[in-house]
């Protein structure tokens, strides 16, 4: 691996997993229908949790509730034992880093400028960039393997490159919780591999990493647990091989899917013939 295992992942290392984020009976609705329907879920430090389900199942909404961007209609989210609603944006941002699927900018920021923005939770009023900010940003860019893009304009990059920049920005945030919305959607095979390994590496350092996936095989291979959503509700949550069985997948996705057992306890989801 090109990236080092020091610094970014070492700081949060700890032996005992503990509850980092806890959702209690969350409800959220955009119109009348519940987008997230009474979801309770506990997420521990050191785990990689994959959130799966069909389009419109409520995955992104749940992520936005967990990160505090959306406020639930009822229920609450606890962040390291404290209610999210009682914390300031800045306090949350120092603990939760969020990687959106994409960002559109009306203005031309360079990749470095975008990544340094990740230092916002630690910056004072109208503060300028410190040497520490630049060092952390540099390290984050190296981890995401985008050092060669540093001076380029974000808007001129491909979707996949932009996704890696957003990842680097979140890494520069140095938060113990990393939440990613479809982190592999624009990535080629090499970068999917790199993204998954990077996420896994950060969980070993003691971080909680939660992400949504459409590619169930990718999720099954790397995630410690998978939470499967359907129509806003949490259908199942547990080890990939337990959650992803053919009958459940057919009822959730509405098409017959084949689930093959692989040696080593892994599984493989296939389309029907």
């Amino acid at each position, binding site marked *: 691996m090109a990236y080092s295992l020091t610094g970014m992942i070492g700081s949060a290392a700890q032996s005992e997993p503990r509850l980092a984020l806890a959702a209690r009976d969350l409800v959220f609705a955009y119109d009348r229908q519940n987008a997230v329907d009474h979801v309770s879920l506990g997420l521990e430090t050191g785990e990689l949790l994959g959130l799966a389900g069909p389009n419109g199942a409520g995955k992104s909404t749940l992520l936005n509730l967990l990160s505090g961007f959306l406020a639930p209609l009822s229920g609450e989210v606890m962040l390291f034992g404290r209610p999210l609603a009682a914390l300031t944006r800045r306090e949350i941002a120092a603990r939760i880093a969020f990687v959106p699927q994409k960002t559109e900018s*009306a203005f031309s*920021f360079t990749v470095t400028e975008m990544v340094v923005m990740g230092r916002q939770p630690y910056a004072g009023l109208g503060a300028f960039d410190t040497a520490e900010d630049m060092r952390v940003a540099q390290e984050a860019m190296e981890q995401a393997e985008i050092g060669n893009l540093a001076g380029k*304009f974000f808007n001129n990059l491909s979707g996949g490159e932009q996704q890696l920049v957003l990842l680097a920005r979140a890494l520069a945030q140095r938060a113990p919780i990393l939440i990613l919305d479809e982190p592999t959607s624009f990535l080629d095979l090499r970068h999917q591999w790199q993204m998954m390994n990077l996420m896994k590496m950060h969980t070993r350092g003691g971080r909680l990493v939660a992400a949504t996936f459409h590619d169930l095989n990718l999720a099954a291979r790397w995630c410690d647990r998978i939470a499967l959503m359907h129509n806003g509700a949490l259908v199942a949550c547990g080890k990939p091989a337990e959650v992803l069985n053919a009958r459940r997948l057919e009822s959730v996705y509405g098409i017959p899917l084949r689930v093959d057992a692989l040696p080593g306890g892994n599984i493989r989801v296939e389309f029907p013939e």
Partner: protein
Amino acid sequence: MMTNVGRPPRALTLARVLMHATIGLAAAVAICVAAPLIGGNIKLAAALANAPWDSAMNPDAMIFWSTRIPRVLLGLIVGGSLALSGLIFQAILRNPLAEPYILGISGGAALGRMIATIIAFGGQVVFFFLAPFACFAGALVPMLILMTLAARSRSVSTVTILLGGVILNVFFSALILLLQYFADLAQVRQMFLWCMGALDIVGYTQIAVVLPIALAAFIVVACHARAMNLLSLDDGTATHLGVNVRRGVNTLLWTGSILTAAMVAVSGPIGFVGLIVPHSLRLIFGSDNRLLGPLSLIYGGVFLVVCDFIGWRGMELMQAAGMPLAQTSEIPVGVITAILGGPFFLYLLITRQK
């Protein structure tokens, strides 16, 4: 061009901002010294060499100190403030075409002042204190419309911005025309000149009123510059990086609107400064608002003083250079900025259609 490739990755430090600001300030000082000395009827060099402060002995020096100097100083403040409010609206509306004049905020302020003119005509003292509040009251209408739009979804598209601004401006112009129709001739002439946006009839009192407002607004922008960078991306990004979006947007919207209203109160609606200056600065210095804030303030001032000088002395200098002009007169600065700004705006609109 370099802007298509990128820029070397560098930290934005206070030292870098101060360096660029110092260069800008040097340009501002140079233009403020040069502009009042050129042209006009008085023999300035002689007047200033001989008893420069004694206005009783030396009426030429008095003209210099009491009209020409305040004119360039006000130009600096108004231009800088208009550029700064353009920068604010562009960041929170995520649209490089947003600008107080285009958004209809200047027009609203102008209408407010027109109404105050009708009400308080004859009472100059009352009017002097009334005008800034009347402008602000007028600016509130387009501002509240903007806030409603902004509250619903802040990714207000270019088309919505343009359409909303055009309609508001047409509406306000119609109301101003209506007021003029019922006003008497002396009032109409005064209103008409004022509506073109000018810096000529000023003294130090106006400067004393707008300078603190401009400085206060600049401090707000300096404190929110990082937040403006994030707000110019999207609400999710800003929130996830620790910015209280609603508070930030409200603070900045009020700041931009008060700033615009104050400037319209002293100089009339001067358009396009907030569009031309921040955009040109972005091409050179990038999009970081921590740098664009101070530079917009400085170069906005420089730009407006230059535009005012063109309108003020342009025809006179052309005649002196041998062009056959039958007569010379001053052109209001608002006309100059509009002549420059219209094509610039079209250029931006065309090049942004990808």
